[in-house]
């Protein structure tokens, strides 16, 4: 499996076009087993909209269901920008996006700029208690008409995360949990960490924001990876 991966990486570096063909060939061959699809049951994920990020995720994109944890040391480091393409496609499918107690006010003009229909966005107040927030998150994950559930909670015990994961699997929904701390034993299949990759003082690169996305844990990935993603294109 390592061989295939290496070869495809090399190809990517040299010719982008040929890589697509080879991927297609590999994908069409049912007898070939690929390491990067190990836990994804062979299903490809939803493209993130950032090719660099796709490359390091199992299934080459966001999982179709289940929980994703995104860890960033402070809010607002670009974690929502990563999800914007996904949100757009979910809204296009006619599903709803539920924001559970976001730390700041969700600003409609930005959503409209991103092409997200605000009629399909629902927000739970910040002052809902943690218990209620988790309850509604579980219910939302179980509901098929919710395509994406975003929640901001820190320090959730593994038992709770396991329950949310199960709910997400039954409802075929993707749940994203934003955290400021790494929880070690989380049962989520995917856990990403966002780090700042802006070198001090480099003004020319600052215009297009770069962040470093690291995979803390991914079911099906065999080594920790990280990549630089350029946001605000």
């Amino acid at each position: 499996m390592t061989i295939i991966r290496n070869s495809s990486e090399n190809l990517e570096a040299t010719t982008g076009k040929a890589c697509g063909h080879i991927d297609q060939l590999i994908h069409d061959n049912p007898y070939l087993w690929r390491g990067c699809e190990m836990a994804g049951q062979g299903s490809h994920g939803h493209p993130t909209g950032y090719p660099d990020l796709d490359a390091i995720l199992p299934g080459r994109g966001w999982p179709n269901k289940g929980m994703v944890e995104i860890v960033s040391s402070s809010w607002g480091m670009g974690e929502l920008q990563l999800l914007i393409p996904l949100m757009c496609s979910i809204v296009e499918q006619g599903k709803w996006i539920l924001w559970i107690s976001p730390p700041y006010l969700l600003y409609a003009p930005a959503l409209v700029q991103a092409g997200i229909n605000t009629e399909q966005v629902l927000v739970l107040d910040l002052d809902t208690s943690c218990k209620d927030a988790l309850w509604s998150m579980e219910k939302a994950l179980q509901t098929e008409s919710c395509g994406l559930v975003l929640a901001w909670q820190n320090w959730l015990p593994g038992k709770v995360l396991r329950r949310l994961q199960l709910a997400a699997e039954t409802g075929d929904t993707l749940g994203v949990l934003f955290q400021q701390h790494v929880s070690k034993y989380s049962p989520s299949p995917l856990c990403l960490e966002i780090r700042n990759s802006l070198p001090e003082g480099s003004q020319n690169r600052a215009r297009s924001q770069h962040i470093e996305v690291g995979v803390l844990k991914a079911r099906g990935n065999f080594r920790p990876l990280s990549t630089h993603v350029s946001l605000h294109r």
Partner: protein
Amino acid sequence: MEEPSKELKSIARIPLPSVHSGARGQVVKLPSVDSSNDSAPTAAGSDRKKLRCLWYALYFPQLAELDAAQQKKYLLELAALAQTVSSTISFHPLALIFEIRSSLRYFGGIDVIHSKLEKLISEQLNAWRLPGSFSYSVSPTISGSLLLARSGHNVLVYQKDKLRSALGRLPTEVLQLSKEESRRLDNMGVRCLRDIWRLPASGLRKRFGSDLINRLNKAIGKAPEPTRNYQPPPAFVTSYDLPYEIENLTRLLPLIDEFMAQLCDFLRRHDLSTSHLVVSLLHEKRSSTRINLGLRQPSRSQKHLMLLLETHFTNLAIPAPVTAIKIVVQKFDSFFSQSGELLSEGKPHPIHYSDNKLNQFMEQLQARLGEHHIKSINNIAVHCPEHASTQLDYTEQNTRAATQQAAQNPRPLWLLATPQKLAVRHGRLYRHQPITLLSGPERIETYWWSGTDVQRNYYVATESNGSRLWVYRERTEAQAWYLHGLFA
């Protein structure tokens, strides 16, 4: 009225109810009931039924002064009163007409019925501060009764063949024709209905249309009269006294489940669904606990209602043990079923998830969290950044004009509820870490007319920890820097 068979036998021997004729009424022989009736063929039975109908008309000229909606409301309430003597009631302008023959035997004659009704109705009319008088008449046809009642004479006509002569004396005003038509009739020398009957039908039809002829034919029973009957509004109230007090609400659930089953049965039978019901838990010496189950989409699914109730129960604190429960349906809705598609596989876009399931989910959320915790957001075309986005309760959607157009300049996904003041040290901006401006300024000046002048220069900036910020500098004297949003 204990047993039907016994009753039938006894009826045959009962002397026919004597009817005192009114001013111009005729005493009639009621067709005697005998046991052979039951074995009679259906055709003959329906013939007899047609014969038997006797319509009692009540005419309320005093309602004419009220507006149409009020009239309708009053007539509905009067119909509810008339239900005590008849089951078939139809509405007409200013009048109620109901079938009375089937009730004659039970009440023991028209006099009893009339005195019973008169008391009820005049009481009701007095309660509305209207004159308590009304005219009434009885005849075998609906229109006939109506015309007789309109004439103001209280007439009782029991036989169809007598109807023509009774009606013939009435003036043409009772037909309530248009001004032009009544003038023409007057010019033709027609003063009462009898005069009309003397005219040739074909000529009449040519001059007045077939409507008039039809009406007169209906009145004397020559043409059928379809009517729409009054149906009392559905009501569902059930209550149950518990044999012992219950403190644990989960113990109540199976019991309420049973009543819900009754309710759903009731709804199914009436082809209705409900969108609002109230479950009251009664306590001793305390006021009862009311649980409002409001549904976004009318439902009659027992499972869904129970789920909602369960959700309510999880957050409910009762002041005392429950001694009784009561379920009242506040609002009935007609039932619309949604059929699934047979061939849904070939469809490329199964759009519109915003249906049943979402509504059920939202109801559940509202039941648990309360109405004001679920917001929908709206984009408003306003320059001032803090007013360009509103969060409304999910229930009061689309109250303000929302647009799907936004400014050209970058806007952050997150906005601070109140702008946070930034520190300036050694000529650099600080939040937690130093801030570098990236682009800008974008000048926003607005609300100069309202007193709270907004004059700001907006910049996109990054903090050295990587957060992308939306900051502004006030253009007023202080020239302070504020953080207003995060691009996240």
